[in-house]
């Protein structure tokens, strides 16, 4: 389960977003919404979501916030990266009904796993649309890539790109059967109870082991605590209390 990834490219693609492309040691199928637990930083691993994967390549998109992600942004092509994973449960891209309309809602650094999920859904012929929220125009990424897959609305808090306001104001639930969402907790809270038949949200949490043993990344649920790493990070919206 520990894999040595080889860095292919590492570049900043927007304000607060660095895209890291790596070669996997072997071809593998990775479900969208799962994550890799990367060995960067002084001691503990860092859980990073997967922005895209195919054949023997994997793409991460992360925001540099501290020691671990700082080290990640310094990796040069040819260097190796110790990755535990893929871990966790992803979005149910294979079980969505082909006749369903899937709405993908992402906020900031929560957008990357939705790109991979949407690409996989569109591959199956599922109708998708996306609403992506960012702070400001400079922090927008992957807009064209999403548009190539389906109708996409971009919002920025300051109005410097797309529609001004929060992502939640731009959501249209009419005719939508399934919701996939990933982003800040406030955004997830506001989409959690939308009038959509099936709602899946991906949550972020400080993690220890990433495999369910340490109980660091728990999240409240109607039946006690669930673990973000192994019960999630993608949950049915009604399974978690945010």
């Amino acid at each position, binding site marked *: 389960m520990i894999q040595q990834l080889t860095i292919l490219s590492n570049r900043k693609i927007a304000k607060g977003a660095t895209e890291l492309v790596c070669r996997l040691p072997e071809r593998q199928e990775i479900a969208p919404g799962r994550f890799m637990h990367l060995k960067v930083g*002084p001691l503990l691993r860092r859980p990073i979501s997967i922005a895209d994967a195919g054949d023997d390549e994997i793409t991460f998109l992360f925001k540099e916030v501290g020691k671990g992600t700082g080290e990640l942004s310094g990796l040069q092509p040819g260097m190796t990266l110790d990755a535990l994973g893929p871990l966790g449960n992803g979005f149910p891209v294979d079980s969505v009904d082909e006749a369903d309309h899937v709405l993908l809602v992402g906020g900031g650094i929560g957008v990357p796993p939705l790109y991979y999920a949407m690409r996989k859904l569109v591959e199956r012929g599922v109708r998708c649309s996306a609403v992506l929220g960012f702070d400001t125009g400079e922090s927008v990424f992957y807009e064209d890539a999403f548009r190539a897959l389906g109708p996409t609305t971009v919002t920025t808090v300051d109005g410097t790109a797309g529609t001004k306001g929060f992502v939640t104001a731009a959501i249209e639930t009419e005719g939508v059967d399934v919701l996939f969402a990933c982003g800040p907790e406030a955004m997830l809270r506001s989409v959690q109870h939308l009038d959509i038949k099936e709602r899946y949200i991906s949550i972020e*949490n400080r993690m220890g082991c990433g495999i369910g043993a340490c109980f660091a990344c728990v999240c409240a649920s109607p039946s006690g605590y669930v673990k973000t790493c192994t019960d999630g990070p993608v949950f049915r919206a009604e399974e978690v209390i945010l």
Partner: protein
Amino acid sequence: MNRLNVELPGLSLKNPIMPASGCFGFGEEFAGLYDLSVLGGIMIKAATRDERFGNKTPRVAESGMGMLNAIGLQNPGVEAILGEKLPFLSNYDTEIIANVAGSTPEEYVEVARMISASPVVKALELNISCPNVKCGGLQFGTDPVMASELTRRVKAVSEKPVYVKLSPNVTSIVEMATAVEAAGADGLTMINTLIGMRIDVRTGQPILANRIGGLSGPSIKPVAVRMIHDVSREVDIPIIGMGGVMEVDDVLEMIYAGASAVAVGTANFVNPYICKEIIEALPGRMDELGIEHIMDIRGRAHGHLHRA
């Protein structure tokens, strides 16, 4: 000849390596990664009488080469552990040590009585040193009178040998160790985490929801080695050493200091295969250092210092 086997009260260890309590759950997560039967033993997650949900998040924060945690003894309660967790562990050829926690002496006694009756459990680890719960835990581990009284009461009901887990958050750990030895402890496990705090400079507030947490990882290893060294000179009961073990040489250091077996904690979170890897690395490293049997070096760091 097995160069790694160690015989301790209640425990016939094929090698001296075991995952530390709270760092390995009840083994299920790791059983998918490697055969748990390679382990000398497993110190399972703390049991309390009733289910505990633990503290709010954030529960962990990195700090240098260490990790602060404040999980808060989340566990399903002793009955669920007996009914659902121990049967799974009975499938493996490894010695199970059950960690017993509580908020009152009565709770410790009841949990010890129940869990020590399980044939799967070979020894108890009396957790009087958890820094992350409001009542009980650490308060029993910092007062030698309370610690020895609790040890005596648990010993009276336990069907298995009792190892007392010592806290480093005391002025004299030797005083604690000799007190619980006199009260009948069969062994010691040490050290638990050191109480610490980290503050987020953006908010000016502690990172952990519990404000304080227990520091573990490589940062605390020299503290553990020193304490094992000091205690092992003063007691006749065996010590299972722990605190920041990341690699095979750390194990040897603890045994040189006086430990008879070694538990691996935080390292399991960084590399889930670490216990197995350390066990596999031990014979080769012992060859390099000219060590025939692992117990040949136990306490060898004591030298011939004259006591003041």
